[in-house]
């Protein structure tokens, strides 16, 4: 009964185009923010931070980034892992070269570098479309991983070929390195995620988002009504890669601490994030959160049940996970191509009318 729009009259266009037009949603959003910033950091420990919260926050950033490209602009990319690697190696080179600059700045610059690389690999999207483009982005994936693996300058000539994050502080707290507390990791990623989500939402609800969606839905018509496809596609690649680069930088600097490119940023990573976007919902910022949460929690859940409760071997649990994820992808594409976000929307539509059926 609380959840409805009747009586909640919008008198200006800015009220009408806000992110959460329904009062109840708006309150829910503020409460979530309050809990995320105020309550979780007080109780978070290393297990929860490393197994659930930090990977969720980082994957959510990457999923928002990929969703802009795939869900909003309609350009399928399988190069996410490679672009995350660009972010990771950029932040590594920046942190080791300029240790005095706050790491947040480095993370943003790493994003910008990734955006540049993304635009470079996005150029062919003008000539090739659909799955031709998807396959072409594999070139980015394989080439970038090879580059970071073979050119020693990128990993500062370390003997192992690994990159290891130096310690750094912000506002007096460690945010990278071994001494970082669980709550510092969590809060650092959370701040970045909120920034990314707000920017993504603003871009997608306005002019830029309309250009992207127009290109996605019917590129020829979009061009005839005045969308420059070069501009629209390349900004999509740039913004998307910017976010993905940030995610890669955080994934390495805050979450992993040490990384080897062929393991941390393989093509499996590209698929993982694509799946988050599909399961969560193409073209939905909320869906990116839902998809990231789902695919972060699923292995934790399976591991706890199959390995922890039933005592099955870990490798079997991992293989079952592959099957379940695969089946879910197919299932979602058949039943609800718009993913969890659409299920959520439908549920809300029902709720708005409740207790009446129509």
């Amino acid at each position: 009964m609380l959840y409805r729009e009747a009586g909640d009259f919008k008198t200006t266009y800015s009220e009408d185009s806000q992110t959460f037009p329904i009062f109840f949603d708006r309150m829910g959003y503020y409460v979530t923010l309050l809990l995320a910033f105020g309550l979780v950091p007080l109780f978070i420990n290393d297990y929860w931070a490393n197994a659930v919260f930090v990977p969720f926050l980082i994957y959510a950033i990457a999923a928002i980034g990929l969703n802009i490209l795939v869900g909003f602009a309609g350009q399928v990319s399988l190069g996410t892992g490679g672009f995350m690697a660009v972010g990771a190696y950029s932040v590594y080179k920046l942190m080791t070269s300029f240790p005095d600059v706050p790491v947040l700045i480095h993370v943003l610059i790493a994003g910008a570098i990734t955006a540049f690389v993304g635009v470079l690999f996005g150029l062919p999207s003008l000539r090739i479309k659909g799955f031709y483009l998807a396959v072409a982005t594999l070139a980015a994936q394989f080439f970038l991983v090879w580059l970071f693996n073979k050119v020693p300058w990128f990993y500062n000539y370390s003997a192992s070929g690994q990159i290891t994050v130096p310690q750094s502080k912000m506002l007096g707290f460690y945010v990278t390195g071994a001494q970082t507390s669980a709550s510092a990791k969590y809060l650092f990623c959370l701040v970045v995620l909120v920034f990314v989500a707000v920017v993504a939402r603003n871009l997608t609800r306005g002019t830029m988002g309309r250009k992207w969606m127009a290109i996605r839905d019917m590129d020829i018509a979009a061009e005839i009504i005045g969308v420059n496809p070069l501009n629209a596609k390349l900004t999509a690649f740039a913004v998307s890669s910017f976010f993905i680069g940030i995610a890669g930088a955080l994934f390495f600097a805050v979450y992993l601490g040490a990384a080897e490119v062929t393991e941390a940023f393989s093509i499996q990573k590209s698929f993982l994030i694509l799946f988050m976007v599909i399961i969560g919902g193409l073209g939905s910022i909320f869906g990116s959160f839902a998809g990231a949460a789902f695919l972060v929690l699923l292995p934790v859940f399976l591991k706890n049940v199959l390995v922890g409760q039933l005592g099955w071997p870990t490798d079997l649990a991992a293989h079952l996970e592959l099957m379940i994820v695969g089946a879910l992808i197919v299932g979602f594409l058949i039943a609800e191509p718009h993913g969890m976000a659409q299920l959520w929307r439908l549920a809300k539509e029902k709720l708005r009318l409740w207790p009446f059926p129509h």
Partner: protein
Amino acid sequence: MPVSHAEEGYVTADGRQIGGTLMELRNITLRFGGVVAIKDISFDIHDGEIRAIIGPNGAGKSSMLNVISGFYIPTEGDVYFKKVKRGPMKPYEVARLGIARTFQNIALFDGMSVLDNIMTGRLTMIKSGLLSQAIWYGAAAREEYQHREKVERIIDFLEIQNIRKTPVGRLPYGLKKRVELARALAAEPKLLLLDEPMAGMNVEEKEDMSRFILDLNDEFGTTICLIEHDMGVVMDLSDRVVVMDYGRKIGDGTPDEVRNNQDVIDAYLGVAHD
């Protein structure tokens, strides 16, 4: 080739003053490989008039419209817009000149709401940059709401207020056609191209659409060039008509002139070959 009316405009039968030449097509030929779609056609469109292109199936009408809208670049011949020769341009550059169009097979963005679809019509006028849009503050937000206001006027004009937030994919055919018109209007075009605006409509919907076309020519002074199959509608709506057959122009003039043109009668009713 003499043009039937003065370069400097004319007065229609019902007393409306029509301006000078807005667009002129000179000796347009369009070939696809060996197929000739348009053969050496010239005609002009005056400022403020309703100009129709008619002809039997496969006469090359849609190709002609695609040449005007810049989607096809003619093999030979020149296009003049506002007395300036138009070089080979990308379609989105043509849109920026102030030429908007609708499509024969509706080309709306199915994943977006009606409002968003119409807002895309104003994309060419947005000036705020990516950063400003990212923070949704200052210029970007102000611009958004200004354009929204203009779009709401068009929504009122076409009487589609109640479907504003509905995803376009869910709309019936007739409404989609109307939304497409709204999107084209949102661009405030100098020249509006309508590709079979009444195809597949019932009588009532046709009447509505005709009213919108006349109103918008009357109230906003928009120049309209339309392709249509329905002869009755065309003759009632338009000031001047071009008739095409097999890629050639076989008639050009007021509806009355065209109706009495022997070539046109032959093309439509068939002619006995010996």
